[in-house]
């Protein structure tokens, strides 16, 4: 195993430790691991499987079922464009299209410089400010296609 993989395995073991022998740890552990690495590296999944005695197939099943988990590296900033009803009727599709064109990135794709990952999401629950997007943990509302580019530019 190369040193980097060892590091991943080591960190994963620390995260798993409190959940050994406990019930219902799969999703919290996956969430923690993803927080640590930004995605779920294969080595980490194998380590969780060994430590929690869950078959890799089952872990893979869980990791691919939920929208939150990613098996590939992601951008430094996660751009979540709300595609909820309220945003839809107030023009969120135009916002999404604008970002796709300008960043040259597909839905759920990452820019080549790993700066942004674009994710359409079902609803951010900030319908009063439609159309809305979230960049990392910050919510931006009452968007127009022009405003969007200005906002994105402020995230290095």
């Amino acid at each position: 195993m190369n040193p980097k993989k060892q590091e991943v395995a080591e960190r994963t073991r620390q995260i798993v430790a409190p959940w050994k022998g406990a019930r219902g740890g799969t999703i919290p552990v996956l969430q923690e691991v993803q927080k640590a690495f930004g995605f779920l590296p294969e080595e980490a999944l194998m380590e969780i499987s060994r430590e929690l005695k869950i078959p890799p197939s089952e872990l893979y099943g869980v990791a691919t079922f939920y929208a939150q988990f990613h098996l590939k590296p992601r951008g430094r900033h996660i751009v979540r464009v709300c595609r909820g009803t309220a945003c839809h009727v107030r023009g969120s599709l135009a916002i999404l299209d604008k970002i796709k064109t300008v960043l040259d990135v597909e839905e759920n794709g990452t820019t080549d410089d790993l700066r942004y990952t674009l994710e359409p999401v079902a609803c951010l629950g900030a319908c009063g400010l439609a159309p809305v997007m979230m960049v990392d943990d910050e919510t931006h509302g009452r968007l127009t296609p022009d405003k969007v580019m200005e906002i994105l530019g402020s995230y290095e």
Partner: protein
Amino acid sequence: MAFYRAHVLVCKGTGCTASGSPSVYEALKKELERRGLDQEVALVETGCHGMCEMGPIVVIYPEGSLYCRVTVDDVPEIVEEHLYKGRLVQRLLYTTPDTKFKVPHYRDIPFYSKQLRIALRNCGYINPDNIDEYIARDGYEALAKALTTMKPEEVITEVRTSGLRGRGGGGFPTGTKWEFCRKAQGDKKYVICNADEGDPGAFMDRSLLEGDPHAVIEGMMLGAYAIGADEGYIYCRAEYPLAIKRLRGAIAQAGEYGLIGDNIMGSDFSFHLHIKEGAGAFVCGEETALMASIQGERGMPYPRPPFPANKGLWGKPTNINNVETWANVPNIIRNGGAWYASIGTEKSKGTKVFALTGKVNNTGLVEVPMGTTLRDIVFDMGGGILNNRKFKAVQIGGPSGGCLAEQHLDLPVDYESLTAAGAIMGSGGLVVIDEDTCMVDVSKFFLEFTQRESCGKCVPCREGTKQMLLILDKISSGKGRMEDLKILEDLALMVKEMSLCGLGQTAPNPVLTTLRYFREEYEAHIRDKKCPAMVCKALISYVIDPEKCRKCGLCAKNCPVNCIAGDRNTPYVIDQEKCIKCGTCLEVCPFQAVSKV
């Protein structure tokens, strides 16, 4: 205790935070200190006031003045005028859209005056991070009453008397649900709060958790006491980081006060509460899928029976209720079930919180007695349609709900009447649709959502929604045939009838209701190849009026596909072959020469 002559409440709900309330709060803090008022004026962070459109919202008591869209630049004037000189800052008060009246007291704003806030009673009024403020508003009094003077069965009877029904969409009588679980055999029982608010267009659960987390916790404890559970879970969407933070804080504070833990208030009732973060799957709002997710599995529903009341989380009897349902419970125990039952209609008691959004002037959260008409909600509280456009429909109940038309505006909103009209109460999302929205597009939008979120376990939902979506795609791109409508309807009824869980059983509702009330729009797409609302891209084109064109070239410069040609001497023309119908030319033209046809 310190005495303050005035309280300044700054909303720190998600909506107002996004509109900039944290910097307004900081500016107020500095300004009050600078003017030496910080000892006599209290500055309080609150949860959501509900009128998110007007945020950031600042409310000042004792006057009860509500200031809208407050910016950092407004702060010195508010402090100087209101807090020093006792004069209202007129320009920041809410102005009624029709009569242009500046409303001095927030209670008199039409958005609030028709509301009856029971579940939301503390939202926007207290600091959710401070348990003392909740207790000062009679918080945990219901728990004390139950633990010291009531048997668990009496708690259930009280909830049954109240007529409370599940606010997450099902509408099942809460007391009856509790009784099933009470009677179930088991050494260990659980209560769960379903905070996986996934319906696009609904945010009442989010606001409740952010604005008054203790009400939900107290409700869960009353439920746990009633059914004999000693452990609970709150399953909350990871997309709601602030709600999770507030809940964690609230649980910790309740623990410090001995309100959560072992032998609460000296009784033999013990209760422990955990938070589980969802991982992004709409189907997890379905109770059996939610429990699978807590157990760390893929969130797929399983057939009932056995019902969760008998065999739920880890095989133990479990009671699941939604956030709003739990938040109603302390009020019912404190004031009595008969009091709650005196509000509402014959079969639907109490109040319901609606998330009013879409093409309406005042978007936000409203809590109204059951039986209030849609007209009251949309036109009185909502202040009518945005930009004076014509009302077309309300979409009620999210992706499981339906679209109701103008003839339903005087419908009293309760479980029965909505179901009769083909919609459902659902979680209470209420999206207003105007004449510029295409109903085929709306039903396609919802179906895309449910199709994507279908977990794939049962065939009718997985394949049926897919086929329905293909037909809708065909219609909206102008390739539909009249017989498609019949096939679409048959498929919809099949999916509704045969799906395993609530997701599939309700997914066809938007299609069925739009077919029922807006059939002529479908027919226009098929027969005339026209989209009456000018939304469906394949059926519209952009043209430049040569008379109005001033040959400025702005459209050509901004066109992403370079399909507009012209020069200083010839009016610009769009090449229809190449045009992708993005609408940029229409947006940028300063002379309104571009139009959709």
